[in-house]
Every structure is written in structure tokens, then in C-alpha cells.
């Protein structure tokens, strides 16, 4: 039971949090409101509260969006990104999942050392090794190919660690029961381990998606062909074009931002669960 005092404190806390989140939301609201306006209106509204209010709903309401979607290759970039994300989610879950499973459940020499090394890799920032990746991919002649983009992105020490932490607590007797049910180890991984760990699979998928969606450096190094660009790179290409108006720029940014916000709000519970459960005691 909460006491009266605790209740009051909770209410005050909620009010403060709400104010803080509004503060952080202002730029987003501003972006959203102005993405529907012609440049003249944006300038005119700049110094008043109207800067946060979308224009009246008329025939031109979506014109910035329509221009972007019809006159640029933005749709193509979006589809590219979704495709890369899908490929990386599937490959990432399989590869990092198998690695995590091995570290959790299979005995092999120096297992603990391996885990240590992988955990150390987690603190190495991507940026420091990206040149090596680049040189490697270039040597293989894979620049400007999907394979070249995807290959170095598959393995992710953090995801391996996440999987490992969840798999460690899977009961061994289920594996034994499955063995007696003529289930091969690989089949067990796909039909038992992954479905029993939906929460972490979802978490890793969301992280992977956000990684791919938000990544700028790596795709900008690998891709030069406009056919293969991701949304982030495309965004840059479109907004740096002199013909693009401020309103159109805001419309593109909105379209790039919205999936991220949607995903966070849909999966926030799962993300928290997935990360929290990795801290649970080892079985």
C-alpha cells in the first residue's frame, strides 16, 4: 500500500517527468508542424506559438511529402534500408544466437575466456574498427554491394552477450527431453531455443533495426551507388540539394524519424524486459 505521502510524491514526480518530456518533444512537434507548411509560412510563423501548430487541413497539406515521395528516390532508400534491416535481423539472430547458445550451454576449452573476450569487444566502439572493415571489404571487391555492407554488421558482441545471458537460464532437461524426441541440436535451436526466448529475439531484432536505420558512417563508406543508399544517406543527399525547401527537408526528416519513435513506443516494454532479463541470476 502506498501512503498518502508516497502518492503525493508520485504525482509530483509524474508532473515533473511530463514537463521534461514535453521539453524534449518541442523540437519534434516543431518539426512535425512545419513539415506541412510552405517555406513562406514557416518563416512567418517562426516567432510565434504558431510555429508549433500545423496549418489548416487543405489540399496542399501533404504537398511537401508528395514532392519528396514523387520527385526523389526516397521511397527506394526506405525500401533498401528495410531490406538490409530484415537481412541483418535474420542473420544476426542466427549467428549471434548460435554463438550465445554455445557460450551458454556447450562445453568447450577456454569457454570463459571466450566470453571475456566477447565482453571486452562490447566496449570497442564501431568507429575504431571501421577502417579495417572498409579495407577488408574493399580488398574482397565488395564495395558497393549489399554483401559488403551486410557482412561486417552481422556479428555483434552485445547481442551475443544478450543471447548468452538468456540462454544460460534455459532448463537443460528440456533439451534432454527433446533429444529423446529425436530432435537434432540444430532443430532444437530453431524450434525450441528461439521460440522459448521470444523476448530476447525481439529485443535483438529491434536493436538491429535501429542500428541499421540510424547508421550513417558505414553505409556512407560502402555505398556510392544511389541504387543502394539507405534512408539516412538518402536524407543527406536530398536535403543537401539546393532545390529542396525547408518544409520538404522537415518532411524527409519526419519520415526518417517516425519509424524509430513508433518502434520505441511499441517495443519499449519488450526492450526493457529483454535487457532486464539478461541481468537475472545464472541457472
Amino acid at each position, binding site marked *: 500500500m502506498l501512503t498518502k505521502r508516497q502518492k503525493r510524491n508520485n504525482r509530483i514526480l509524474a508532473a515533473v517527468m511530463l514537463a521534461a518530456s514535453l521539453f524534449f518533444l518541442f523540437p519534434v512537434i516543431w518539426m512535425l508542424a512545419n513539415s506541412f507548411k510552405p517555406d513562406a509560412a514557416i518563416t512567418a510563423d517562426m516567432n510565434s506559438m504558431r510555429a508549433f501548430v500545423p496549418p489548416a487541413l487543405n489540399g496542399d497539406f501533404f504537398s511537401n511529402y508528395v514532392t519528396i515521395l514523387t520527385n526523389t528516390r526516397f521511397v527506394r532508400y526506405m525500401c533498401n534500408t528495410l531490406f538490409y534491416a530484415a537481412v541483418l535481423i535474420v542473420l544476426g539472430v542466427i549467428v549471434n544466437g548460435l554463438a550465445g547458445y554455445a557460450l551458454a550451454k556447450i562445453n568447450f576449452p577456454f569457454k570463459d575466456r571466450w566470453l571475456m573476450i566477447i565482453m571486452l569487444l562490447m566496449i570497442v566502439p564501431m568507429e575504431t574498427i571501421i577502417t579495417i572493415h572498409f579495407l577488408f571489404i574493399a580488398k574482397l571487391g565488395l564495395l558497393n554491394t549489399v554483401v559488403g555492407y551486410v557482412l561486417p554488421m552481422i556479428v555483434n558482441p552485445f547481442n551475443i552477450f544478450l543471447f548468452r545471458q538468456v540462454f544460460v537460464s534455459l*532448463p537443460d*532437461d528440456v533439451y*534432454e*527431453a527433446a533429444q*529423446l*524426441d*529425436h*530432435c537434432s541440436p540444430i532443430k532444437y535451436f530453431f524450434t525450441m531455443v528461439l*521460440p*522459448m526466448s521470444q523476448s530476447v529475439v525481439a529485443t535483438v531484432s529491434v536493436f538491429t533495426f535501429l542500428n541499421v536505420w540510424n547508421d550513417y558512417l558505414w553505409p556512407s563508406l560502402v555505398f556510392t551507388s544511389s541504387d543502394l543508399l539507405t534512408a539516412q544517406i538518402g536524407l543527406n543527399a536530398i536535403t543537401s540539394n539546393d532545390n529542396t525547401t525547408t518544409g520538404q527537408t522537415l518532411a524527409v526528416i519526419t519520415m526518417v524519424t517516425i519509424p524509430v519513435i513508433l518502434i520505441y513506443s511499441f517495443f519499449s516494454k519488450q526492450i526493457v524486459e529483454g535487457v532486464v532479463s539478461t541481468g537475472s541470476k545464472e541457472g
Partner: protein
Amino acid sequence: MSFIELKNINKKYKGNEKNSVTDFNLNIEEKEFIAFVGPSGCGKSTTLRMIAGFEDITSGDLVIGGQRMNETAPAERGISMVFQNYALYPHMTVEKNISYGLKNMKVPAEEIKKKVDWAVDILGLTEYRYCKPKNLSGGQRQRVALGRAIVKNQKLFLMDEPLSNLDAKLRVSMRNEISQLHRKLGSTTIYVTHDQVEAMTMADRIVIMKDGVIQQVGKPMELYEHPDNKFVAGFIGSPQMNFYDVRVDGNCIIFTDGSRQKLSDSVIDKLKGYDSVIMGIRGEDLKFDEQNLGLFADSLHKAAINNTEIMGNENNLYFEFGGITSVARVSKYEVSQIGDQVDFVFMPHKMHFFDKNTEKTIVSAQ
């Protein structure tokens, strides 16, 4: 040749100094219900898991159906297993859990359906057929696990403490169900439990283990009436057998408190050469009624009841005698109150005598 032969099986886990199972020898006939019992850590699960193939056999031979199986994969040994924690597939329905193995064995769909129908029916799971395990009670889950084991038509069932997670009442009813199932299906069963009541009530033969070594193998009543050593005598039966340190003196034994008990000539004969021994007698073989008091009046003993356990159908009386807290088990018609002073006798032919050093039985009850 027996259906299952365990020959000189030893198990030493990596990193352990001692064997977990030592020189395990046992033959099991087809359709037998065998129970492994013993205190925690005595190697019951280890032995069972070696039979299943989940643990390597350090040395010795495991023969099932005439074939050496030491290196055979678990799935190829022709066994089904029921686990202590059910080990159900949590994301599959009851039906899928039961049919999963059959599907992997490429059994035709029609036959799978027939088998699942049959299993679901005899286990009373019909209305839970499409439920997931998390929506079932412990007893229902264990029934699903049983279902998964019986549909595969394996010759050998292994069960590792399948009822230990259930409450007392459910345990009794599941005990009956498993016994009935065994009678119906006739599959050879090895049942691990640390509960001697389960072992006594269910098993055709019991294997009692301690520290990885078999203490005795036999029918439940054999173990009860003729234990091979003090450990078996104490492990089987509730309340525990009374053990007295006694001196042998002529045709009597003398308890530490000086009480004397006259023995028959044949027993005295067998105790020749022993200075002191351990005398063991079960609570129900202490008698308080007029008739027995009259019959064995040459060795009357006195007891001051200091505690009672009223069970309804029968009662346990506790009192100090012979240097220990002794327990007697009496019928509900022989009520005694705490503080009562009563006479009692030991049934002379129900006394067991154990060697003090080896704890082996010298004379067991007739």
C-alpha cells in the same frame, strides 16, 4: 538373459575425487517396476542418467535388450523419460508436446492423432488439449509429461522424482495413476525417488543406495522384514526403526539403562562371539496389550510417555528407553496420554541385530 543388465557400472564426474556411483550391478526383467531410493546425493539420478545416455559411463557395461548401449545416443536406446521439472516445451500446446516426438520419428499423421487421442483420454487431459503448459497445474503438467512418454511405445520408462513437485494429496493420486498406467502398458519402469513410501507402494523391486553403492535389492516386504544392514533398516519404514546399543550377556541383552531382555536360544546362538551389538525393532513390534504382556512377562519394560503423535488410525508414542527416544506405534484403541506410565514388551521374534562395526545384519526378524 535379463532385459536390462547393469554390469559393474562406475561413474566419476570430472573434477570429483570420489566415484558418484560404484560397482553398480543390477539385472532388470521385462515389465518390472524398479525403484531407486536413497538419501540425497546417493547417485540415483546419476545412475538413471547413465541408463538414459545423458551421462557417460566411466566404466562398466550397460546392456539393454541384449545390446551394449554405453555409446548409443539417448534417442536410439528405446527409452522414454519423465523429468522432475516436467521439461515440457513451453511454447507448444499439450497436443503438440505429446506428438512432437512422433512427428520427428516420421509417424504418419493419422497414427499420431490416434495415439494422442488415446493418451489425452487415459490421462484425463481432453479439455486441456489446446492449452499451453503455463496454464496447467503441476499435476496436469506431469500428466502431459507422462503422455509424451507413453505415446512413443518405448520399452523402458525412466522417471526421476516425477512427483516431488506436487503437493502431498496429488502425489498420492498420481502415484496410483502411474501404477495403473504401468499395469496397463506393461513397460519396464525405473523410478527414482527419495521417498521410501513411493518406492514401497509402487515398486516390484527396490534398489536402495547410499553414497553411490547399492545397499540392498529386493521386494518391498523383503527390505522391510529382512534388511541387509542397519542403513536399509533405518531408511525403510516410518517411523524409523528403534536402534539400541546393547551388551550381550548370557541369554540376555542389556540396554545402556540396565534393562534386560531375554532372547531365544537360536538368536543367542547367532550372537555368539559378539560383546555388544545394535538391536533394532520397529515401532509396531512394541506391544502394550494384556495378552502380549502376559506372554512375554519375563522381559517387561517400563515407559513414561513423553510425547504422542495422533494420526487417527494409529498413534505414535514416544518415551525414553535404552538410552534413546524410542517410538512405538499403537492402534487407535490403545490411547495413552503424555505422562502415562505403562508396561511394554518387545516382540522377541521381531528383533533385528546388527554388527556394531560393519552395521551388517547378524540376525533379522523371523
